[in-house]
């Protein structure tokens, strides 16, 4: 099948959806002529024009806030916040307005908004351009949080997100933009809230997200050589979260390791560990392990950043501890 990069897959999803539905528009900083700082909106301006591909000032509150108003009034905005780190200046519009409006209004409002943003370290962009903040938004009722790890998932999940009638935070890990994978040419959807088992195994369940999925798979390769069969589960959507797949996998393997790039404390892994401890307690043969970033901001120096990002090795040793 034809191969595309992660960024190209997202770009194709945007183009195909914009062709299908004229109420979809894209807005954000440098999404027009520039094609998005990471190239995801490349060619959109040329095809759809300035009315539908809107360069905004550096004005995150107004970017998300205007998306809320536009959605309430019948459009389907797909807005871009360049780095998830910048969402701090617009958080009110996302967590008090977009996320809650439908509920506060007793179910009347329909807010089909997609907020695309990037996360993750690995570019030496330091503490304000490298964070993984997904856990916060998973903690906010009313938002859906999508976090793909492959070009195939990226296209299908973005199309589903655009067609979803709820506000969706669509998180793209910077270090994944360049990876290639098979992507069908025609539009297709992947349901939100359905995890994907990226590798089957019987000894340990490793739940990993975004860039960590790939590290987990590498770790699984190495461990297979030592006769340890790792099952790698990629939730793909963090909210809603596909509990069943995770729990069923643990019921099979009896062991759980959770890997993410967000800091460990109160991170996505805490919730997943809690769910399993609550709902699959009797199936666990060993304590749950979390492999995550330490409780520090993201450092700049490549040496420090490497020490910060969870490594294949740390995943391997965590797995060995639980099978030990």
């Amino acid at each position, binding site marked *: 099948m034809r191969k595309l990069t992660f960024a190209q897959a997202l770009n194709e999803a945007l183009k195909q959806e914009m062709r299908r539905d004229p109420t979809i528009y894209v807005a954000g900083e440098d999404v027009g002529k520039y094609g998005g700082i990471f190239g995801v909106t490349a060619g959109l301006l040329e095809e759809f024009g300035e*009315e539908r591909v809107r360069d905004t000032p550096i004005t995150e509150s107004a970017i998300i806030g*205007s998306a*809320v108003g536009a959605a309430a*009034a019948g459009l389907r905005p797909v807005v871009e916040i360049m780095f998830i780190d910048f969402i701090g200046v617009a958080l009110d*519009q996302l967590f008090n307005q977009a996320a809650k409006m*439908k*509920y*506060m*209004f007793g179910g009347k409002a329909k807010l089909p908004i997609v907020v695309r943003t990037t996360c993750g370290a690995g570019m030496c962009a330091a503490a304000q351009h490298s964070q993984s903040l997904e856990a916060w938004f998973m903690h906010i*009722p009313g938002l859906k949080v999508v976090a793909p790890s492959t070009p195939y998932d990226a296209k299908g999940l973005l199309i589903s997100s655009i067609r979803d009638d709820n506000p969706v935070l669509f998180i793209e890990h910077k270090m994944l933009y360049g990876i290639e994978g098979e992507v069908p040419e025609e539009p297709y959807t992947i349901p939100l809230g359905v995890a994907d088992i990226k590798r089957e195994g019987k000894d340990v369940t490793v739940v990993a997200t975004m860039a960590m999925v790939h590290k987990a798979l590498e770790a699984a390769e190495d461990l297979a050589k030592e006769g340890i069969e790792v099952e790698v589960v990629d939730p793909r959507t963090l909210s809603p979260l596909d509990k069943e797949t995770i729990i069923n996998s643990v019921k099979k393997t009896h062991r759980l390791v959770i890997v993410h790039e967000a800091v460990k404390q109160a991170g996505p892994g805490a919730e997943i560990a809690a769910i399993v401890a609550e709902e699959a307690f009797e199936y666990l043969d060993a304590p749950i392990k979390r492999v995550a970033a330490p409780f520090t901001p993201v450092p700049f120096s490549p040496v420090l950043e490497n020490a910060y990002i969870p490594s294949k090795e740390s995943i391997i040793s965590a797995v060995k501890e639980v099978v030990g």
Partner: protein
Amino acid sequence: MAIEKEKLLWMYERMCTIRAFEEKVAELFAAGKIPGFVHLYIGEEAVAVGVCANLRDDDYITSTHRGHGHLIAKGGDLKLMMAELFGKKTGYCKGKGGSMHIADLDLGILGANGIVGGGLPIAAGAALAAKYLGTDRVVACFFGDGAANQGTFHEALNMASIWNLPVIFVCENNHYAISLHQHKHMHVTDIAERAKAYDIPGVVVDGNDVIAVYEAAEAAVKRARAGEGPTLIECKTYRHRGHFEGDPMIYRPKEEAEEWMKKDPIPRFEAKLLEMGILTPADITRIKEEIKAKVEEAVRFAEESPYPEPAEVLQDVYTE
């Protein structure tokens, strides 16, 4: 002046309705029948009414934590509003929103808002949609003097200006950001001055003179419908009651309040209409009786309505 009789009577009736509704809410709140916080609009009626008198049903408004007046002026249903204040199942938001979050999308009411300045970018977005969809709808965005210091004010006005969006930004300058007087929260006297910072027209009007508000809004709405972009209207007014019910109001001098009470928009307008012969004392009694009945009916409706089922708490978070 060129405003036809029906419109004038409509404005009078609406102002009185807001006043009667709010006074009843104050009474019910004091009696413990309405829970939570309520922020009353009493004293500012001329602003909401003067602006909304220029709007069509398919135009939009964004409102504030002090939103009852805007809702009534835009045609909100007293029964559903009151039921919401009581937290009843039959309320506008099925008891999930309360005073600060009432909305009626069919009437273009994009919601009251519990966050100061929260509605400004939302208004810009609704205007973007109106323009994008090729309609001539406009958006009236109400906010207070306090909100004019919020970042969202700056971002929304700048965006509306560069994108030439059909928004009327209506600043209800009641001179207090909760307890802080305007001269302590901004270094300019006229908020309308700030329009220059976005290259849009800014006008100051007497917010207690409904005719003045109407005329300023009329021009701004015409401008917006014609695709000529946003306008900032500053309405100088005063809230007769505290920031919220229960506010001791220790921060505001008695004399100041008394001065403003003399400028109460309703008696002023009433006198004008009498003098113009559009209204007779008999009409006034009749209109007020009718309004009283409507409000009573709303209260009855709210009282008789059932509370929501606890299980409903889990509904309406997501659209299925």
